[in-house]
């Protein structure tokens, strides 16, 4: 026999102005099954909650309906109140007569009628609610960080310093990411590697961080607190345990002219190589596509073409037979920190983008991008820190910088702003002018976006103190004319065409997520936008979480980010994870699906349609161990309560706790009267 308590809130004037709460309470009191019905000015207040608690005790209520604001606001509040009065919290629900009624209607009579209907609707449901217990699942308190750039490094250090184990996976031979390629960072002009490498070493030496460099995530399964990940450790062809990083192998390698990825194509490296001297781990990798030994092997030549590195290695660490290995582990949370790549202006593009034919499609040697300029300016770079032209190695006296290449260009496929370019172009002009005192730096821009702390001052310094010339206008085309690159621009502020014969042109190209991000996102079941950027759970209030519980994001994989942003996001993600790991068990709402094994026919349509992979299979055997049937079973830890299985099941064997068919039909019928 139902004894439901109905409590109608005025919410001050929010509801009371439009809905006659007293009338709602009066009409509800006449409903069969309603044992108590009253209205009050502020139900969420202490006295309001006390009314509920008293009514539960005095009238021995079997369920509570609070007709007030949205459950998003106060469901927790009222459930806590019921719980403290001894009533199972899941026997308490709210009818939204504010957002769904008083806030959207004007006519008092009809709004009140609707409020009555809305409350009746919920009462019929709650009559059929059953007590539910919070689900508790164990948490594996180890984190996986995917990506070893500054964001991944920061997240790993914060989680490890917080006392938890971290596995850091990085696909390149060394951690450090793009930050390790930069010469100096804005707005302080700190040497990038000087501030980064101590962190890299800290990661390597940290007792709670397991660094898996030259590795990639192969498979992910499971759910928050209980992920199983399979990681592919790619074959370096060098035994990590034997190598001591002496570098002798690289000195004797006969293949010396491979375009260096670290130097953004401007420098050369050997086939067995360490990407840069401060690499962590300082263990080389053999680039099998370019190594003479492996190329000969691929051609089927019997005699080994080369084995110089192996011969030279005093510790016998070179192992041509090495193969990829796999490591499987359980983690409780995952941070995606895969960073960015730069858009290229070339002719070959993914389907959604176009290249810049008007700038030469990347075929003009003295037209380079921002990362390439960073390598020129770096002391560890291919020119020893001298700004020199790729075509003839001469020092350029006139450098032109173009902002917004790809960015803010819907016709080319990228409508967004890449955030960091205005700042690094200002920085580039300063680096150039510091090194070439009689050089001219011209920047073609549309706007200057310098919103960070000290950023505006930094740009002004470039213009006022270091003599950078800023011209507002986008460049129509670049053509090679003998020794120079002709830049056809326009100064919109003075209204003059401006054609410059540049020695070097640097393009500030757009930031895009790393290649392969879509495949990784699908493995993790996280959503991403049309550009590949991972979607945050809420753009304002939940910037480091995704809609997949247990998967967090940090850095440029989510949107164009600068280093302070990336570090802040990484620490934020770490704090979320440490919060998650602060309990041994994870609490989840019990409004999940449940299969009645007696009714289940074992068709597994539910398994097919479940978007979260929450349906498992359970064998039912007799006492002798013979298999009787295989039925579906819902993993309460993974189920998100979407109800798709309930809608699909032909046998009506699976239903959402708290949202059974019986309840829903009862609600519908309540309105039909």
């Amino acid at each position: 026999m139902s004894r439901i308590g109905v409590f109608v809130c005025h919410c001050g004037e929010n509801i009371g102005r439009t809905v006659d709460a007293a009338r709602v309470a009066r009409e509800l009191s006449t409903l069969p099954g309603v044992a108590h019905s009253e209205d009050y000015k502020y139900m969420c207040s202490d006295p309001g909650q006390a009314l509920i608690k008293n009514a539960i005790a005095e009238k021995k209520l079997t369920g509570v309906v609070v007709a007030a604001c949205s459950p998003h606001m106060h469901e927790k509040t009222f459930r806590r109140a019921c719980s403290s009065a001894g009533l199972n919290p899941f026997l308490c629900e709210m009818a939204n007569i504010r957002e769904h009624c008083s806030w959207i209607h004007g006519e008092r009579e009809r709004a009140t009628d609707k409020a009555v209907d809305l409350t009746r609707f919920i009462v019929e449901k709650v009559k059929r609610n059953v007590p539910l217990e919070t689900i508790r699942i164990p948490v594996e308190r180890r984190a996986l960080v995917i990506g070893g750039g500054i964001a991944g490094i920061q997240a790993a250090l914060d989680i490890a310093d917080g006392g938890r184990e971290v596995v850091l996976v990085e696909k390149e031979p060394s951690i450090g990411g793009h930050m390790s390629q930069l010469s100096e960072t804005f707005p302080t002009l700190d040497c990038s590697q000087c501030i980064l490498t101590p962190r890299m070493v800290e990661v390597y030496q940290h007792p709670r961080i397991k660094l898996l460099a030259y590795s990639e995530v192969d498979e992910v399964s499971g759910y928050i607190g209980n992920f199983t990940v399979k990681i592919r450790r790619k074959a370096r062809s060098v035994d990590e345990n034997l190598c001591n990083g002496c570098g002798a192998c690289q000195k004797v390698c006969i293949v010396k002219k491979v375009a260096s990825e670290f130097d953004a194509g401007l420098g050369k490296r050997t086939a067995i190589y360490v990407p840069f001297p401060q690499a962590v781990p300082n263990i080389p990798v053999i680039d099998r596509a370019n190594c003479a030994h492996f190329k000969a092997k691929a051609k089927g030549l019997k005699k080994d073409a080369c084995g110089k590195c192996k011969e030279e290695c005093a510790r016998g660490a070179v192992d041509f037979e090495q193969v990829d290995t796999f490591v499987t582990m359980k983690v409780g949370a995952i941070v995606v920190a895969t960073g960015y790549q730069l858009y290229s202006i070339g002719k070959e593009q993914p389907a959604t983008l176009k290249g810049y034919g008007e700038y030469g499609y990347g075929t003009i040697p003295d037209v380079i991008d921002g990362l390439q300029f960073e390598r020129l300016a770096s002391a560890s770079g291919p020119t020893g820190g001298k700004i020199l032209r790729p075509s003839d190695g001469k020092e350029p006296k006139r450098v032109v910088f173009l902002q917004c290449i790809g960015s803010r260009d819907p016709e080319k496929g990228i409508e967004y702003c890449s955030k960091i370019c205005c700042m690094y172009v200002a920085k580039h002009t300063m680096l150039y002018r510091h090194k070439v005192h009689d050089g001219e730096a011209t920047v073609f821009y549309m706007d200057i976006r310098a919103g960070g702390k000290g950023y505006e001052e930094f740009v002004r310094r470039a213009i006022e103190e270091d003599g950078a010339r800023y011209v507002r206008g986008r460049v129509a085309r670049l053509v090679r004319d003998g020794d120079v690159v002709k830049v056809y621009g326009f100064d919109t502020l003075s209204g003059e065409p401006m054609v410059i014969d540049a020695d070097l042109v640097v393009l500030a190209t757009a930031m895009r997520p790393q290649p392969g991000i879509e495949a990784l996102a699908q493995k993790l079941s996280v959503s991403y936008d049309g550009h590949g950027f991972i979607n945050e759970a809420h753009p304002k209030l939940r910037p480091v979480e995704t809609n997949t519980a247990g998967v967090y994001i940090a850095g440029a994989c989510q949107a164009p980010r600068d280093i302070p942003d990336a570090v802040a996001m990484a620490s934020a993600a770490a704090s979320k994870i440490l919060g998650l790991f602060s309990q041994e068990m994870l609490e989840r709402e019990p409004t999940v699906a449940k299969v009645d094994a007696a009714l289940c026919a074992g068709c597994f349509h539910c398994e097919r349609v479940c978007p979260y992979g929450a349906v498992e299979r359970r064998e039912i055997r007799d006492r002798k161990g013979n298999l009787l049937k295989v039925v579906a079973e819902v993993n309460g830890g993974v189920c998100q309560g979407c109800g798709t299985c309930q809608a699909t099941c032909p046998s009506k064997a699976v239903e959402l706790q708290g949202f059974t068919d019986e309840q829903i039909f009862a609600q519908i019928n309540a309105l039909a009267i």
Partner: protein
Amino acid sequence: MKLGYYPGCSLHATGREYGESTVATLRALEVELREIDDWSCCGATSAHATNHLLSVALPARNLALAEAQGLDEVLAPCAACFSRLATARHEIAADAALAQRVASVLDRPFTNHVAVRNVVDVLRASIPALKAKVMKPLAGMKVACYYGCLLLRPTEIAGFDDPEAPTSMEDVVRATGATPVGWNMRLECCGAALSLARTSSVVRLGRAIVEDARRAGADAIAVACPMCHSNLDFRQSAMTRRGEAEMPVVYLTELVGLALGIDPAELGLGRHFVSTSSLVARAAAPPPAPAPAKVPQQGAAKGVA
């Protein structure tokens, strides 16, 4: 292959050699051209610069005639005519209200199914046939391919080559045996329809084009538009200073025709203002014999370790 043929007003007058060379060359490449009967002016620049409906209706009349005469595709050698016909086709297909207005103005049946082609695209498609039939390869001739504007822009109308880095004219030139040169002014406007109303602009723009071709070492500029040809050839004397060499301006079809061994007079090469005799002479000369391949002799050659 059979194509409808829309010569347009220029090819019957100031661009006469373009018409002559197009017909002769395509005939040699076994492309049959059937001129649209009773065609009228497409409206050129003056219509679209002043009256949108007129600028669509005038070309549409010709497309409707082509349809009625059983033609599926129409070749318009003049780049402006090509652009106007293709634009009319595109806009009528995209805008139902416009299609209705044009239908009532035309007062004749029109389903807008005739495709519009230009000479460069047709020649490029015929490159295999061209290579097979070359009689006088234009070896050693350096040609600056000048695309002008309307062959490539706007992209969704022209649609057959990259508007910033096209290769179709160079591909055709290479097939004739000549060498296309790299130069910077191949996409810059010649001054177009301002030829009469503001000749000084045409001279300024044309001079930059001719100078750049000269600097790139070209023997000739190849064009595929009678307006461009007129601006660069008819008006070249105003652009040239004393002591500067003249730059012959040839239609792509004339070049192809020369390589196919067609009589220069039939191609209209005598009608130019800047003489084409140097090119004709070059084509008449036999191709230089290929240099003998150097085969390394074992032991006998000097310098071998």
